[in-house]
């Protein structure tokens, strides 16, 4: 058990960037991100013993992180809110304790304004994942991935132009 935990913590330590980035695109404040970060770690730990293919650790971490984050979102406080009141996004306290550059902040705000699915598509695209990997993580076809990436990029560019 201890060696399994050590192995898990080593993997987690190496791949924790994924958790932080998923958190940044889905949650607007620090306490939500902290809670979700803990939840993702717990869900990863729960499914770790069943992880068969150690070559696809990245895909496993993306899938668990995205699914866990989405399951924490509540419709009434997120989707409708954001679509109807875009000005509130300016209050996005994204990085109250972190020191991101202006370009990074702009990009994160623009991604945050995308719908929940486009966020995950954009995340995987920006992480330079192949269409095959994106299709595997999201469970959709490769052709669907291509279409969705183009749409998400368009939406992101529009959001970025609003951010200027």
């Amino acid at each position: 058990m201890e060696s399994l935990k050590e192995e898990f913590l080593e993997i987690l330590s190496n791949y924790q960037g994924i958790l932080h980035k998923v958190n940044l695109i889905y949650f607007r404040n620090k306490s939500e991100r902290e809670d979700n970060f803990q939840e993702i770690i717990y869900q990863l730990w729960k499914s770790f013993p069943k992880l068969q293919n150690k070559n696809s650790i990245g895909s496993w971490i993306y899938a668990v992180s995205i699914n866990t984050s989405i399951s924490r979102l509540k419709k009434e406080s997120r989707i409708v809110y954001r679509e109807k009141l875009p000005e509130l996004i300016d209050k996005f306290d994204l990085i109250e304790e972190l020191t991101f550059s202006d370009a990074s902040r702009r990009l994160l705000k623009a991604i945050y304004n995308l719908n929940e699915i486009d966020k995950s598509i954009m995340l995987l695209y920006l992480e330079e994942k192949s269409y095959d990997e994106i299709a595997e993580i999201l469970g959709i076809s490769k052709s669907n991935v291509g279409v969705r990436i183009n749409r998400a990029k368009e939406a992101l560019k529009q959001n970025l132009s609003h951010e200027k």
Partner: protein
Amino acid sequence: MKNNELQNTWKNIDAEINRKTTDELNQYLAAKCRKTMNKFLFLLSFDIVAAVGLIVFLIFTTINREGDLIYQANNLILGVITLSALIVSFLSLKKLQVNKYNLPLKEWLEQRIKLLSAWLLGKYSKLYIVLIPVLVAMIMLSIHVYYEYKPFLEVMKDGESIYGLVAGFTIGLFVSYFAVSKIRKYQLKNLEFLNDLHEQLCNIN
């Protein structure tokens, strides 16, 4: 921003992230495991205490009312329902805990939608409408008849008792329906949210 600019900015974000040490990650894991276990035990113990408490009351009152067959039958049926509810709630809680987050997003959404739909819209989803009044009435009868210190049929003939029972039943029914409808409303919103996401993911038109 062009595509490569986007990707470069994203790489900068990656570099700017404040990473946790292995010790901190270990503490996060330990804290979350403890919290989850406590929550599970709290829900389970609340369930067990309420159900066991009711069963003990039913056994105690049934023994004290030897000869009052209608009262005993009421308590027996109530006891069986309570025991079944305890078992079902334990199994449901276990089922809800097994959330397979390691599946591809589409598969995971479909699994959650199926689970919630069965619970909220399935064949037995409206059973609570019938079950709640029956249970409230039986619990009211069991408590009221016992503390009237009279046989079941005598209590039923007493006008004052009937008023008391009707008032208690109405309040109990209102509180139960209110609680159940709150939970259902919350879960229906979750289901709608999951369906929206599934639609967003699968609809490419």
